[in-house]
């Protein structure tokens, strides 16, 4: 135990003395939190419209006003021909091109169904889908309002609604995308620390030869692994605390569930990641190799984690693969606990799986860690 403490002390001394790595450890996360949350999200905040209004009537004006009333749509161009609209999509000046037909207003008043042509730049399939559904919703509102406004006058049309349909968006009433992303970004933060720093730390001792000196000492495997992993475990948990305060203050993420539960889950998760870092260090000789492998693993973990795109949207085989992805479990846990107020019982299964992974990878890494070579 005493030996472990001295190894930890030594690691901390080295971490805090490295003038190049220190900013990377402590400043990078802040930048990451800011940039990632703001850049890395699929929230559609702005859709640029190109409008070709052939009717130029009061109704067509109202439709345009309706569209830009929220902050979402912005008319960036008014074109005179359908070709022109297509061109602004091709050259990426606009995301959606509308063509409002002649006689738009007259047909509306006559109770007909004038057709507005909506062309969407679908290159980004997701954004296209969202724009489409936003427009559909706004058009529905427009129809209801416009028809109600003219209903009094010519035709007493619209029947009473048979179904009174209402919608509630739970856990995120204002539909803030930041709140959805923040837990994922916390996970990325601590994963970086675990995978990169821990892995590269041991490879660095290999590269500089100091590992030899350690290997002739009576330090045993458990002491070595504990002494090497604990500092980064603590560091990552410290970073998590920092990140939690940050997302609370800056993004006002609701903390519905138990914060202790989040830390407990993260503590188990970090054992998985740190052991993986250790495993990488046992199969690599240089920091460059270690970094490449860590990067490779991390990219795949994050892409398959459900951080950006729901795991449920993946095909079955990919879903099976993501069952082996620790990142997916922790993101799921944090989202459920913080945003939905899940209790330990609700996430028991995930916790068990993570614990199993932690035990397995640690054992594997421990077995591969040798003081002598064959």
């Amino acid at each position, binding site marked *: 135990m005493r030996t472990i403490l001295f190894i930890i002390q030594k690691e901390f001394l080295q971490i805090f003395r490295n003038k190049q790595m220190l900013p990377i450890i402590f400043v990078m996360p802040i930048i990451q939190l800011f940039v990632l949350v703001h850049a890395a999200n*699929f929230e559609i905040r702005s859709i640029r419209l190109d409008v070709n209004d052939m009717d130029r009537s009061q109704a067509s004006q109202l439709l345009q006003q309706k569209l830009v009333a929220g902050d979402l749509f912005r008319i960036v161009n008014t074109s005179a021909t359908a070709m022109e609209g297509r061109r602004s999509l091709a050259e990426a000046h606009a995301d959606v091109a509308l063509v409002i037909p002649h006689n738009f207003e007259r047909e509306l008043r006559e109770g007909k169904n004038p057709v*507005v042509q909506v062309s969407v730049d679908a290159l*980004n399939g997701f954004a296209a889908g969202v724009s489409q*559904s936003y427009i559909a919703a706004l058009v529905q509102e427009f129809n209801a309002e416009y028809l109600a406004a003219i209903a009094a006058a010519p035709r007493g049309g619209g029947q009473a609604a048979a179904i009174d349909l209402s919608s509630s968006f739970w856990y995120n009433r204002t539909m803030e995308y930041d709140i959805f992303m923040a837990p994922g970004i916390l996970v990325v933060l601590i994963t970086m620390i675990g995978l990169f720093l821990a892995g590269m730390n041991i490879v660095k001792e290999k590269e500089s030869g100091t590992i030899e000196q350690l290997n002739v000492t009576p330090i045993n495997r458990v002491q070595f692994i504990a002494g090497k992993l604990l500092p980064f475990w603590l560091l990552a948990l410290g970073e998590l605390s920092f990140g939690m305060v940050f997302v609370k203050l800056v993004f006002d993420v609701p903390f519905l569930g138990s914060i202790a539960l989040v830390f407990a889950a993260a503590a188990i998760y970090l054992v998985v990641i740190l052991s993986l870092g250790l495993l990488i260090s046992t199969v690599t000789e240089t920091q460059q190799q270690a970094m490449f492998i860590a990067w490779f693993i991390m990219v795949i973990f994050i892409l*398959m984690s459900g951080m950006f795109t*729901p795991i449920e949207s993946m095909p079955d085989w990919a879903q099976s*693969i993501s069952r082996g992805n620790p990142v997916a479990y922790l993101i799921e846990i944090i989202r459920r606990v913080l945003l939905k107020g899940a209790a330990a019982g609700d996430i028991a299964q995930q916790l068990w799986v993570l614990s199993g992974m932690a035990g397995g990878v640690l054992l594997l890494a421990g077995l591969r860690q040798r003081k002598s070579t064959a």
Partner: protein
Amino acid sequence: MRAFAGFVRKEFRHIIRDPRTLLILFGMPVIQLVLFGFAISTELRTSNLAVLDMSRDEVSGAILDRMRDSEYFNIVEDVGSEEDINAAMQAGRVKLGLIFGPGFAGRFSSGDGAALRIVTDAADPNTARLLQSYAAAIVRQFQREQLNAPETPGMRIRTALLFNPLLQSVYMFVPGLIVVVLMLVSALMTSIAITREKEMGTMEVLLVSPLRPFQIILGKVLPYLLLSCLIAALILVLSQTVFALPFNGSMLLFWVECLLFIFTSLALGIFISTVARTQQVAMMVSLAGLLMPTILLSGFIFPIENMPLPLQVIANIIPARWFLEILKGVMIKGLGIQQLWTQTAVIVFMLLLFTGLSIRKFNIRLQ
């Protein structure tokens, strides 16, 4: 010239002798392409639904049948209270709930407005919004049919999805992947390779050799140039054969623009290596300063228009942002140089800038 050829041969050998790194360089884009093409999708598949039905009559039953028949919903729980829906969502078992108010059939036929509430798990706001709109559409459709209502008046929209009618994510990711890989190989690998030479002291040996300084740099970057082209070609071939991605523009323009971007990245890599003293610094600067922005701020995954203004401004100084627009234009939209000259001009400007800076830095170091 023979000395130069020998030097280039040595550089190639360095790369080929590290099969692990080579495997990652070629394997990474392939695996990512497969993931983006087959696994990662934003299109919704079947979502689980919980029902709280306070009426249990023929109308609510009919609506539930409609839900069941649609490809989007799978009714997994029939619960007794709103709290049960909450619990099911907390445990991650369902994504949305339908709450039928009391006396549903009666109010439906009398036109009193039978209450139906759609509750979605908006922890993921985008998915929630989509699910809500799908469910609402099914309900409205049902209502229209039941009431035998004549076509309601009001405008209709006809949507055309241009360039990617099936909304496949590969369309977006293939150009993005090419950009990231070119940046990774040309800038990151180059900067590390040259810095390693400095760190080991072998740069001094090369500098006193008959090789001219620009030959040394050229010899160092040539293998990476070739490697970049090979990987770009690999991605292109895979995207056409496996994913049937169309290629609507000019192949010549594609490669000219690729080379332009590769040269810009190489210049960046060289510039970093003139500043960094150790491999680790070169690595970190390349990762944080080049690769991260390329992935996050180029519009590869996340649309630039959705970012806050400061990030949009920063995005403009990232070469990848401009190159990505070019690639999308050439590959998918079939644009020619007439439409893409602005972006091309920006990249040429950056290329000249970084080359100039590197040469200055390098000369200072030599004196």
